[in-house]
């Protein structure tokens, strides 16, 4: 456009000059000479103005061209692609490398439990891995630092570890904030968490590579933890349930805490967390080579923030999986109690598993497990569990179908409790 104006400008001034000359020739004299000079001055002023406008237009055109080229670079992609969002808006939302994801699952099952006197069935939310929804995001600040946040909420209708003979549908649905957490990760210095989430020791009793943990692992109480032992002497249910007798002392669970993980070295991770009172430290090791995959964890916890009766708590577990599909898992834990009249409770646990692809649809996984516990609910209590688990993975459907069975026995002095047999079958559907 400016080039057009510049081409046009000489013609315009030339015409004006011709008019001026014509006037000057037709009207001679001093007065006419003054008019001619005046006109020439006006023409020169107008010419200067036109040239100034032309320069401004040149600048504007260059700026428009520069903006057009930036739009091409910064907004590539298909319609609907997040990259179409203007770059300034992206940066304002959290940096040049940002990710926000939503995830979740529904895990529903049928639980059938027999206490030696009667058989009841329950529709439950499987507490081995409960129904939940979460959102997680992180933004890379620079080559070393990443800032992240995670919120995860569990919503359970009839949790499998709560229902029992006297309360088949616990009144209030269980709504729990599992994670409300901010995280700062440095490649060189490690990871810092603040908020509610896993304590360092959480999961240290539960390392399990069998793949059947959805329906059976060292957390025995997750399958039928609320079911009450039947007291044969009183001919009524007792006040002791499966969860009272078979805890796996799995650290401090998820709590509001400050947690720090050292940078991982050769698969070894060391972490610690600080609660309002007490805290914990944990050591983890995960590695794979050739045909083997191995994981182990060990933790010490000072559970002052969650219990006044426990002084110290120790937990450990290890699991190994061979490429043939065979796996072995062990776990153990104990507590030292404040009350000197109470014996320190303990447990140990073992599991053998096998996984193979018998069908095209996905892997089929089997395992058998065993737990022995002592002094957990009362001095002298001895508990024993035997179980069987089967899981059919259906990756095409984002689902797993499972079946688990457990036999629970409690020996208590001067009491006669019936054994509890529990069967659970259900499906976990991942969003």
């Amino acid at each position, binding site marked *: 456009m400016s080039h057009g104006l510049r081409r046009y400008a000489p013609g315009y001034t030339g015409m004006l000059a011709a008019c001026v000359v014509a006037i000057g020739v037709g009207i001679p004299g001093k007065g006419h000479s003054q008019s001619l000079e005046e006109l020439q001055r006006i023409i020169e002023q107008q010419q200067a103005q036109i040239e100034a406008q032309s320069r401004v237009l040149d600048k504007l055109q260059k700026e428009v061209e520069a903006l057009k080229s930036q739009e091409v*670079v910064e907004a590539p992609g298909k319609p609907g692609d*997040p990259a179409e969002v203007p770059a300034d808006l992206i940066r304002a939302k959290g940096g040049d490398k940002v990710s926000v994801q*939503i*995830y979740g699952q529904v895990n529903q099952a049928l639980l059938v439990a027999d206490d030696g006197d009667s058989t009841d069935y329950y529709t439950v939310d499987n507490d081995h891995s409960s129904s939940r929804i979460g959102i997680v995001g992180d933004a890379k600040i620079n080559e070393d630092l990443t800032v992240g946040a995670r919120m995860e909420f569990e919503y359970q209708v009839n949790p499998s570890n709560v229902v029992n003979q006297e309360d088949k549908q616990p009144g209030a649905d269980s709504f729990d904030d599992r994670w409300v957490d901010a995280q700062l990760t440095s490649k060189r210095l490690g990871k810092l968490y603040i908020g509610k989430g896993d304590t360092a020791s959480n999961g240290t009793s539960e390392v399990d590579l069998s793949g059947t943990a959805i329906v059976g692992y060292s957390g025995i109480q997750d399958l039928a933890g609320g079911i009450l032992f039947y007291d044969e002497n009183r001919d009524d249910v007792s006040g002791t349930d499966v969860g009272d007798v078979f805890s796996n002392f799995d650290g401090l669970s998820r709590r509001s805490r400050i947690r720090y993980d050292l940078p991982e070295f050769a698969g070894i991770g060391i972490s610690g967390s600080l609660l309002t009172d007490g805290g914990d430290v944990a050591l983890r090791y995960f590695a794979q080579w050739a045909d083997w995959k191995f994981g182990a964890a060990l933790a010490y916890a000072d559970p002052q923030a969650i219990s006044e009766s426990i002084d110290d708590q120790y937990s450990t577990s*290890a699991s190994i999986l061979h490429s043939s599909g065979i796996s072995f898992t062990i776990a153990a834990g*104990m507590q030292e109690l404040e009350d000197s009249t109470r014996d320190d409770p303990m447990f140990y646990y073992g599991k053998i598993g096998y996984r193979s692809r018998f069908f095209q649809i996905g892997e089929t996984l089997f395992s058998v497990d065993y737990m022995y516990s002592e002094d957990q609910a009362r001095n002298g209590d001895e508990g024993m569990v035997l179980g069987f688990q089967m899981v059919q993975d259906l990756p095409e459907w984002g689902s797993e179908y499972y079946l688990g069975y457990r036999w629970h026995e409690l020996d208590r002095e001067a009491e006669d409790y019936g054994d509890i047999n529990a069967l659970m079958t259900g499906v976990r559907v991942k969003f």
Partner: protein
Amino acid sequence: MRCLLPAVMTTAGLTILLLAAGCTKQPESFEYTPVEEVQPGPGLFSGEDGVFTIYEKTADTPPRPSAEESKERLEAPAP
């Protein structure tokens, strides 16, 4: 603590054994997902990823020039 000793020794023994075995061939660490967490793998609705990525930007893009940079560029003589 006495009753826990066998299990701790077994765990420690297995770890040492496998670490030693790892010395002959360099082991690789892997991402372990705790049993209670949502496991990796495809989802029914989300497909292969197993998660809905509602927002993601990973590619490095050249930053938009500031007003000062634009002015300098405009005032620079044409090549």
